[in-house]
């Protein structure tokens, strides 16, 4: 029983770390209807920037945070401007493909620019495990979880209550009409990408310090899919709840299912759960359903 509790504890923390990455994905989808297949590479880029500042330039951690935030915001702005804006209103698969192309560019150019060797840095929270009852918590993961929850609160408020948030949802709903309401559609798209950039920057720092920094960091992008689908592609709270579910299910699967079937079920257990969940709720737990009327 205690083992199960420990597994769940693991799952909660790692799940919230997944959410951190999923949030960036959800923001972009929610505001611009674009699926960002380069989310993992975004995180990798942020991690590379932070590592460059800390390891190569040997500057303090907080400088790295600022540079990574600024860098990712600038990058997202540029990306929106150069790549995604011309694709506005084009078929959704074109946007998907563009982000796949972007992922290739980042994977090719990122290590080339920032150096191929693996770099590591640690968060100022230290490396010593925290003991909390039976739980042994890794400070990095705790940090990631806290950041995730902070973002959840901030973004939930933003979209539900703030006028900018409402405007952003209006843009997502119908760009043309939104522009006729005096909403500067491009600016909101840029804003959405910048927000995704911010989340990715922090995701990159946390994951980068956990995994060590090189191209492999981008692998965490793969974890996003079951998370966002379970929670609902366009739901901020969904990203967090989805992350928690995936984290917990993964851990329980590894703890209890693996010994039975003799293989790593961790990766596909969440996917199986996801399909079952989708059969019941086709738009995820919190996703909004498409309004279909004739």
């Amino acid at each position, binding site marked *: 029983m205690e083992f199960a509790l420990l597994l769940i504890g693991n799952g909660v923390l790692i799940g919230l770390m997944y959410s951190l990455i999923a949030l960036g994905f959800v923001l972009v989808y929610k505001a611009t209807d674009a*699926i960002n297949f380069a989310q993992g590479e975004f995180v990798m880029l942020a991690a590379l920037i932070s590592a460059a500042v800390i390891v190569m330039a040997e500057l303090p951690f907080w400088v790295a945070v600022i540079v990574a935030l600024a860098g990712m915001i600038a990058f997202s702005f540029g990306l929106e401007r150069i*790549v995604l804006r*011309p*694709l506005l209103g*084009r*078929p*959704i*698969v*074109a946007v*998907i*493909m*563009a982000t*796949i*192309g*972007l*992922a*290739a*560019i*980042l*994977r*090719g*150019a990122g*290590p*080339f620019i920032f150096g191929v060797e693996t770099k590591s840095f640690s968060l100022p929270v230290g490396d010593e495990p925290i003991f909390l009852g039976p739980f042994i918590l890794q400070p990095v993961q705790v940090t990631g979880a806290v950041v995730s929850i902070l973002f959840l609160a901030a973004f939930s408020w933003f979209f539900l209550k703030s006028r900018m948030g409402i405007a952003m949802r209006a843009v997502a709903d119908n760009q043309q009409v939104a522009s006729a309401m005096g909403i500067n559609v491009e600016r909101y798209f840029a804003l959405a990408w910048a927000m995704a950039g911010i989340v990715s920057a922090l995701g990159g720092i946390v994951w980068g310090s956990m995994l060590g920094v090189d191209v492999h960091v981008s692998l965490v992008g793969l974890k996003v*899919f*079951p998370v966002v*689908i379970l929670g609902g*592609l366009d739901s901020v709270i969904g990203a967090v709840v989805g992350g928690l579910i995936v984290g917990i299910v993964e851990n329980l699967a590894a703890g209890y299912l693996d010994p039975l*079937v*003799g*293989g*790593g*079920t961790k*990766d*596909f257990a969440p*996917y*199986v759960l*996801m*399909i079952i969940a*989708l*059969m019941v709720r*086709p*738009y*995820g737990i919190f*996703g909004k359903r*498409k309004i*279909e009327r*004739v």
Partner: protein
Amino acid sequence: MFHRESGYFKTTYMADMALYPLPIARWTVGVLVAVFLVMPPLVTGLTGGIAAEYYISIVNIIMIAVVGALGLNILVGYTGQISIGHAAFMSVGAYTAANLAVKLDLPFWVTLPAGGIMAAAIGVVVGIPSLRIKGLYLAIATLAAQLIIEWIINHVPWISGGSQASIEVPRPTIFGMELRTQRELYYFLLFFAVIAIIATLNIVRSRIGRAFIAIRDQDIAAEIIGIDIFRYKLIAFAISSFYAGVTGVLYTYYLGIANYENFLITTSIDYLAMIIIGGLGSVLGSIFGAIFVTLLPIVIRLFMESFGTLLFTTAELNNIIPAVRLSAFGLLIIVFLVLEPEGLNRLWRNVRSYFRVWPFSY
């Protein structure tokens, strides 16, 4: 394929509905077929035996890719169901054929359709969620299918042939002749590529294909005019996975081994890239896309190899080429999408419609 339409009148519906209603188009197709038939000896004559093997090997890989891309386009381009798990069906086909070929000693003309049918059956199962799940949610459900199929192959030795998950397959034989060299495999692959192309052209212009497009454009209306959309989505999944299964089998015979690590998500994404870049909902686009995605990295590399030495040393080049090739691949995809989001096929049509009235442009 530059043809002019004026001057030909069709007197029967049959003539109006032919695949290539204009004589000039029939001629072009004829010439193309002839070119493809004589290509290997021609290339061999021009470049010498070993070099020819290389060039033909590239054509061979493209022809295999064409089959897979056509299948995926039926599902994604024509029926509008995005799939990111296409490669998994290829591995289903590959292992089915490999097991039949090794355990039961069956020849390729049995294992090939068998691989296709098995993949189609699994495809139908994977398609079942499409009853309720739509759009991107479905796309990611197919990603799940990819992972689950990979997992099963990896963990069931009876399918995978052991912990290495690879099964060596004897080369295909025709009339007692074993096909080994690229030149010999060329005709083998060409045969199936052509069949796949013709079958796709026929399917998409007939009742089934129209139903697919109807589902893609307006699923509610499709259902209300009498199309059982669930059934047709499953049919689309089945046909598409059949093609994928055949692709997997062809690939297995081409390599002489079945191995699921040839068919991971990256492969699925490559195929998706082919049809998006080539043009969704277009047979010609699938072919263009297969060519483009296969050739692009090779061309970029050859280009860099030829001109890079002017600026860099070989050691530097070894480091630069891969990075640049990957980035350039991504960049070209993006540039291309920004310029023509509807794909190569659209670009081709624009060129063609320009020439159609040429030299009397408006």
